[in-house]
């Protein structure tokens, strides 16, 4: 009987611990996660345009290197850096945490940066005639070089 009670208690405690782990599971820590692949801005855009966003890269940490074409601080909650791809109306848009706003304000347009973040996909016009930009979206970004 004692063994049964102990077994049930172990299972219940195990289930509670696993449930708690899932509930409090942290978001991906980009700085501590190794990039799955390094791309140039041009390579990243072409890869997504030609192959779509494969399950291999979807929501995964990647790094991307390119020339800064714009530092976009227009959204108070998410400062963003836009990298040039060399292709028409095609960009890499990297979103940062709010606390990085000051760091981003010191980024010089035209400099080349290597950025690590979570790849989300391409936000393109998709038949909507007023929307012309094709933005590859990378989130939770950090500047690594």
């Amino acid at each position: 009987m004692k063994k049964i009670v102990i077994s049930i208690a172990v299972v219940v405690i195990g289930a509670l611990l696993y449930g708690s782990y899932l509930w409090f599971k942290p978001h991906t820590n980009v700085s501590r996660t190794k990039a799955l692949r390094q791309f140039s801005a041009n390579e990243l855009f072409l890869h997504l345009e030609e192959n779509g966003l494969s399950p291999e890269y979807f929501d995964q940490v990647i790094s991307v290197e390119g020339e800064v074409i714009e530092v976009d601080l227009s959204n108070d909650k998410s400062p963003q850096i836009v990298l040039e791809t060399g292709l028409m109306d095609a960009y890499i848009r990297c979103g940062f945490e709010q606390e990085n706003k000051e760091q981003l304000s010191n980024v010089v347009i035209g400099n080349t940066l290597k950025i690590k973040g979570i790849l989300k996909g391409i936000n393109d016009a998709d038949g909507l005639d007023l929307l012309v930009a094709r933005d590859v979206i990378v989130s939770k970004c950090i500047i690594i070089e």
Partner: protein
Amino acid sequence: MMNTKTLLIGFLLTFSLISATLHEGHIYSTRTGDVTFFSHTNIEDIEAENHKVQAAFDAETGKIQFSLLIADFEFEKALMQEHFNENYLESHKYPKSTFNGQIVNISAIDVHKDGVYHSPVKGMLSMKDVTKEVSTEGTFTVEGNKITGNAKFIVDPADYNIKIPKNVAGKISDQIEVTVNVAFLKKG
């Protein structure tokens, strides 16, 4: 001496350039718009934000369009974000949500005069494999070259083929409040 063909090509190129310039002159756009959704139940409140919404409107015709990536909604809890993407919205299969609509009373908005203007906005909202009409009241605040657009509307997940498992149904509202907050800038 230029022949007729050269003159015609020159005329067409000039006309296209002028048309494009005039067209861009009344387009307002952004790629950093905010869309938030909020679900309230007695058990739990769930909120998620997307800060990279691409949007534009034509100040002459009133046409207004939005596009966002579903996977770019950020939740407080990683588990909720995972369930939202993998189980409910299937964001890998249906990566985007778009809105293609109309500012109904565009003539009431004077984009050359600072002020707060109101107009119904209606159009087709696409999410997953479903496109449905939605309508709401939009507020447009003109400040120089910047026009801030705000709107709220309600979405029922069932309308968009979003299946919520019975064991979590009580935690997710069937009246999801969607809030749009975008700062458009004049293009060109």
